[in-house]
């Protein structure tokens, strides 16, 4: 695949990698040592929880760990987790695929507005959705409520890739099918649907991953899953080995899902390769189905976005002055902003060397570093938190339940977000500029500071903002690692909702959404 003239210019598409802009990896030049050292530090921090979890789970011998894993209760938790994941994935596939088809291929009235509205649920944390449903319909508690809340926040994970795949299919294929005597429905089933399968499968796996690692919605809905089981087991006794063993099982499950998801993404990329420049398909007239289609979109958007906002508004309106504690609210908001900013700063700082190395160098070290940094992608927040608790209690007692440990947990969890942003931003900067700077007498480190980083700065900053938003919304790790007496908006919301004081919870939910909306809005503007 390389021509002798440009041996290092092209690179095989990496599974899961975004389409590569003009950029190339260097084979010949090793990363400067300070860069490599910081990157190794980041990589070590990222895999530390995983390693420690294994050590801790096996501490009392494999037999004990096996007893916990083979326990009847573990089996039932496993079934409950998988059952919830299966139902949510199925529902998300129905919602995601139908909405994608309606917004991409049909003459749905107001199609542009709809295609924005149906992605908004991504901004609603699962526990906020759970809070709104629970406060409006307490009888939903349990499986139904958990499945409903999870579906309504995660169907965009299916919608987005499927809509993109639909846009990529050459409409001429469907015309050929129609000209060969197949009706619209048969054409969709035999020509379109099979081509959507990789995108839908990838999205479905993401949803499954999200459901398995979710803690907020299932715990508020009092539906016992693995994450809730780990939390209860950790809180219930001083013996933390069972919690560690359960975490290990959960990690194995999520790692398997991430691997499966990466595989489908790789294949989806291949099937898209080689398509020509497809002209856009003529939108399909809906005819008599226009009203039902509109009603479908309206129902989904109302349930996923309108309803939570409405309920929130209701509780804010009925909340008496007794439930409003402006001082506490502003304190909590400031604390949240503080830890999230610290988390984003540390994560971005650690992601920078890893992202630069991932974008500009290759070889085993670079590859390992990148993989290590992505570990957090497979780790549910609760397991990272547990691993850091174990580690701190054993080796860094003064850090236990202190803010730095919480910030470290954010870094482990969200390093993938920041590394992906940094890597993409560095790839956008043409490497030839670095060559020019070297030839004008700059050392590799100065080239990094004067050329690479300034050029990548907007993308890195966007990654930092994104990290900031996800840190702010993080719940399980914050619950476990926060210093005694410290609360973030997410933990207050969780506590108040758990106690059934919905009116008291509402201001925190509103503050969270508002505070997360500002950076998200800025991000959107940056991207367009």
């Amino acid at each position, binding site marked *: 695949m*390389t*021509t*002798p*003239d*440009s*041996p290092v210019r092209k690179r095989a598409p990496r599974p899961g990698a975004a389409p590569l802009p003009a950029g190339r990896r*260097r*084979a*010949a*030049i090793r990363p400067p040592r300070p860069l490599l050292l910081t990157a190794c530090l980041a990589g070590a921090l990222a895999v530390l929880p995983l390693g420690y979890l294994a050590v801790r789970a096996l501490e009392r011998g494999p037999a004990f760990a096996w007893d916990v894993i083979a326990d009847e209760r573990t089996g039932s938790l496993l079934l409950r987790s998988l059952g919830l994941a299966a139902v949510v994935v199925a529902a998300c596939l129905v919602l995601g695929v139908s909405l994608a088809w309606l917004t991409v291929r049909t003459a749905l009235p107001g199609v542009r507005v709809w295609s924005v509205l149906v992605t908004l649920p991504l901004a609603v944390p699962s526990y906020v959705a759970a809070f709104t449903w629970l406060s409006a319909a307490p009888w939903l508690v349990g499986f139904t409520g958990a499945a409903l809340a999870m579906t309504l926040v995660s169907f965009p994970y299916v919608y987005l890739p499927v809509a993109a795949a639909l846009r990529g299919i050459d409409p001429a294929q469907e015309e050929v099918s129609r000209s060969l005597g197949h009706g619209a429905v048969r054409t969709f089933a035999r020509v379109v649907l099979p081509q959507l399968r990789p995108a839908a499968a990838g999205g479905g796996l993401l949803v499954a991953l999200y459901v398995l690692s979710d803690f907020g919605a299932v715990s508020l809905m009092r539906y016992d899953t693995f994450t809730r089981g780990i939390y209860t087991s950790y809180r219930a006794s001083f013996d933390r080995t069972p919690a560690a063993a359960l975490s290990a099982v959960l990690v194995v499950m999520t790692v398997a899902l991430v691997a499966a998801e990466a595989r489908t993404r790789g294949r989806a990329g291949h099937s898209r390769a080689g398509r020509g420049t497809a002209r856009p398909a003529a939108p399909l007239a809906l005819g008599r189905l226009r009203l039902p289609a509109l009603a479908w979109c309206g129902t989904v958007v109302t349930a996923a976005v309108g309803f939570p906002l409405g309920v929130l508004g209701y509780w804010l309106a009925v909340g008496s002055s007794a439930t409003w504690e402006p001082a506490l609210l502003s304190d909590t908001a400031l604390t949240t902003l503080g830890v999230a900013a610290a988390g984003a700063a540390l994560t971005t700082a650690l992601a920078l060397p890893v992202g630069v190395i991932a974008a500009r160098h290759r070889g085993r070290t670079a590859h390992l570093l990148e993989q290590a940094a992505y570990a957090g992608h497979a780790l549910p927040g609760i397991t990272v938190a547990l691993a850091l608790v174990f580690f701190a209690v054993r080796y860094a007692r003064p850090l236990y339940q202190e803010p730095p440990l919480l910030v470290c947990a954010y870094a482990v969890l969200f390093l993938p977000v920041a590394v992906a942003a940094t890597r993409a931003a560095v790839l956008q900067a*043409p490497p*030839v*500029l670095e*060559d*020019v*700077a*070297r*030839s*004008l*007498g*700059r*050392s*590799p480190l100065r080239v990094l500071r004067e*050329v690479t980083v*300034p*050029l990548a700065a907007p993308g890195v900053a966007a990654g930092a903002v994104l990290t900031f938003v996800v840190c702010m919304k993080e719940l399980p790790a914050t619950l476990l690692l926060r210093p005694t007496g410290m609360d973030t908006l997410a933990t207050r919301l969780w506590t108040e909702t758990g106690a059934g004081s919905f009116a008291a919870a509402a201001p925190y939910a509103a503050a969270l959404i508002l505070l997360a909306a500002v950076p998200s809005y800025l991000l959107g503007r940056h991207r367009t």
Partner: protein
Amino acid sequence: MTDLQITGLAKGYGPGAAVLDGLDLTVPGGSLAAVLGPSGCGKTTLLRVVAGFLRADAGTVALGGHTLGGPGVHLPPERRRIGIVPQEGALFPHLSVARNVAFGLTGLHRSARGRRVGEMLGLVGLDGYGRRMPHELSGGQQQRVALARALAPEPDLVLLDEPFNALDSALRAGVRADVRAALRATGATAVLVTHDQQEALSTADLVAVVRDGRVAQCAAPQELYQRPADPWVAAFVGDAVLVGGAAEGGTVNTPLGRVPLAGGPGAPGGLREGRVLLRPEQLRLTDPAAAHVRGTVTDVHFYGHDAMVTVAVDGVEDPVGIRVPGPVPVRPGGRTGIRVTGEATLHPAAC
């Protein structure tokens, strides 16, 4: 003056894939050499090895007598004093034109730096453009700034990597002339990498034709065109007419008539028979009635400034091309006579 001396340079990517295969090249100080070759011949690799971005497997690169790279020696790019002008200029998009040009001027005082930047911008004909940002410049202007940036620190050598490729043909000639003038004015030794034979022949003092990782021939443009080392080089640098022939004294007998043989490196001693190489513009169309050599016109391609006439010559297997200036006196199917002017080179038949 700083000569560039490359000896025995080898570089491969993986086993059995030698990109540079014992390449030798000497560029005298102050001259502009073009490295010409088809894509995949190793030109870009050569350039990256000379600049220090790649490490060669074998061989040495020396500049002004100092070894930059060789066995056990590898000077990093920032210490080689070699300026590069990449394709499409590659200006730093976050820096103004002046700061781009000043990028390599680290040792100078502020005022001296400003003076030098002004000087360099004047040299490339962009006085007063210092405050512009790169995206506010045209492609040709960007290329000139890139040259000014490379020349500002007074490098010992400037490497230009197909710098005119991205420019449209109307602009190319002008920018090419300006670049050549700027290089002359500074007296810098320069290596221009290109796959465009016209560009190489018209711009450089010395042209090195690279084939399969080696220099097939290195000569001044006229010498290269008139006395190519072999038919491949001949065909690569221009249109060629090849016919069989036998040497006799200082001339060679061909089906197109008797032609004087050129001396120099293109004339292998002792060779009696082989292929005779002529250029299409050496052939003339004549009146068929009075000619010794006749043929039938099979095709006419008119280019404006001249035309290429293809003639099936009686007794010659392949049709020959004849370049005709001005109006074309013949049409396809017509008969014509042919006369040869100038000198020919003789090459082994098996090559």
